[in-house]
Each structure stands twice: as C-alpha cells, then as structure tokens.
C-alpha cells in the first residue's frame, strides 16, 4: 500500500495555483535583487553582491524544490 496521497485534478489545480503564486513572488523578489545588485555594482558598491547572489541561488533552489513537488503531484493522479 502506497502512503503517497493521490489528488484529484481539482486538488492538483489548487496546489499548482498556490505554488505558482509562491513562485511568482519569489521571481519578483529575484528580479528586484538583480536590479538592485546591478545598480550597486555599477555604483562601485561591492558589499551587497555576494549576499544577493547567495539569496538568489537560495530562491532558485526553493523554486526547484517546488517544481520537483509539482512533478510528484503530477504523478499521483487518481
């Protein structure tokens, strides 16, 4: 017996909507990070570059994790 829950299409759509909202917020944050870092770089301010890069990579990993979960949800069709 599999312990993995299976979702109906309606449930999957709700899950994808939630994940999509989260991913969109993260991507907007990443875009802001990129523009702020570019502005700092062109202005010669080096202090924010590596922390912002680390934050951006962390967001990418989070998004990748959500995408992986999307594939898991996609496989558990009823």
């Amino acid at each position: 017996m599999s312990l993995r829950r299976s979702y109906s299409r309606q449930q999957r759509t709700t899950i994808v909507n939630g994940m999509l909202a989260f991913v969109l917020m993260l991507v907007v944050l990443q875009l802001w990070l990129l523009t702020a870092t570019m502005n700092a770089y062109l202005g010669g301010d080096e202090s924010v570059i590596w922390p912002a890069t680390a934050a951006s990579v962390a967001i990418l990993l989070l998004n990748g994790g959500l995408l992986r979960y999307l594939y898991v949800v996609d496989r558990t069709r009823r």
Partner: protein
Amino acid sequence: MARDDNHRANVDSDPRSPIDVRVDTPGREGLAGTTSASLYTPLQDSEQVTLAPDGRPLDQQPPWRTDFPIDWPQDHYVERREFMKFMVLTSLALAVGQFSIAVQNWWRRRRGQPEIRRVAALNDLAVGGVATFSYPGEHDDCVIMRPGENELIAYSQKCTHLSCAVRPLMDEGVIHCPCHEGYFDLRSGRPIAGPPRRPLSIVRLQVRGGDVYATGIQERTI
C-alpha cells in the same frame, strides 16, 4: 409481469440472442441487487470528461465547441503547470545573471585601480574651461573642468542612464545629457533632473608641477 414473460418468450425464440437472461446467472448478480450498481458504470476516467467553461452539458453548447472540444479544467491545470515551469526557468536565468555580476565584480577587483596618467597641462585649462581626455581605457571618455582658479573637477563622460556622452554647461552650473534630457550638478556630479539615478563617476585628479594627473576612478551609488 406479463410484459416480462412476453420479453422472455421473444428472446427465447430469437436464435440471435443465445444469452441467458436470468438475473441470477454468473456475471449478472448485480441485476439481482447483490452487487453495487457502480460496478456496471462505464469505465471512464472522470478527469477526461470534456467540460465547457459554463458547466452546461455538451448538447447545450454551440456547435463550434462540439467540433473543437477542449477540456477546460484540464487546460487550466496544464497551462498553470507549464507557466510554473517557465517561471522556474526564469528564476534560473535571474540567478545566472546574478552570478555573472558577482563574477564581473571579482574580475574588476582583480584588475585593481588603473594606472596614474597625465591627462592635461594646468595652463591649458583656463578658468571656466573644459577639456576631454580618455581614462583609463582608450574608449573611456572623460571630461575635466576648471570652474575656479584652484578647482579642478573630472567625471566620466558616460551618462549613468544609457551611457550617452554628457556635456558640461559651465554658465548654468550643470552637466547636460542631450539624449534624454538628464542633468547633473556640476560640482557634485549628482543627478538633479531627468532619468539618471546614479551620479557620474569621479576621476580622481592630482596636480604635480604644472600637470594634471588622473589617479583613479571612483564610482558612486548616491
């Protein structure tokens, strides 16, 4: 009851129907109420049923919808799923861009400050005069101004908006970018009007004897 008898009689006499119609024969228990009726519902995936956006059955839909049926709930699910994949790809691109800035910064630090170079003779610059020079590279145009007797100012000539060449207006005390009507303060190099948001890069100067030397570039965010 009489109707059932008639039906059975017809079926028994029909050579094309050799099926035993009795409800208690093996495989037909459901008709006798011993098995749930759902066992006999068509094997159809409920998620593959085509539904119109308004939820009405297909026979009440316009003909074009019958000709080109779309499973809207499935379509919504798939388009959101694909959009999310695209967004994660966008996230990857933004992270790569961020990383490239970090690499470029590392490369810039590795190069260090440019070498000191003579850019003008002090006597060639009259009070209120302006001259141009290249520093640190051949294509890095800069502008040097002498607003007062003992005052020398030099900036990179690239506008911080879109890198157009700026030109000093000494009488008005501003530096003007003609491309998008950007204005910078002459003495501080800070933007005062138009689209530029960052001040002009300062070229550090040193006067040795009668010559003016550029000793480095100072980029600023505010």
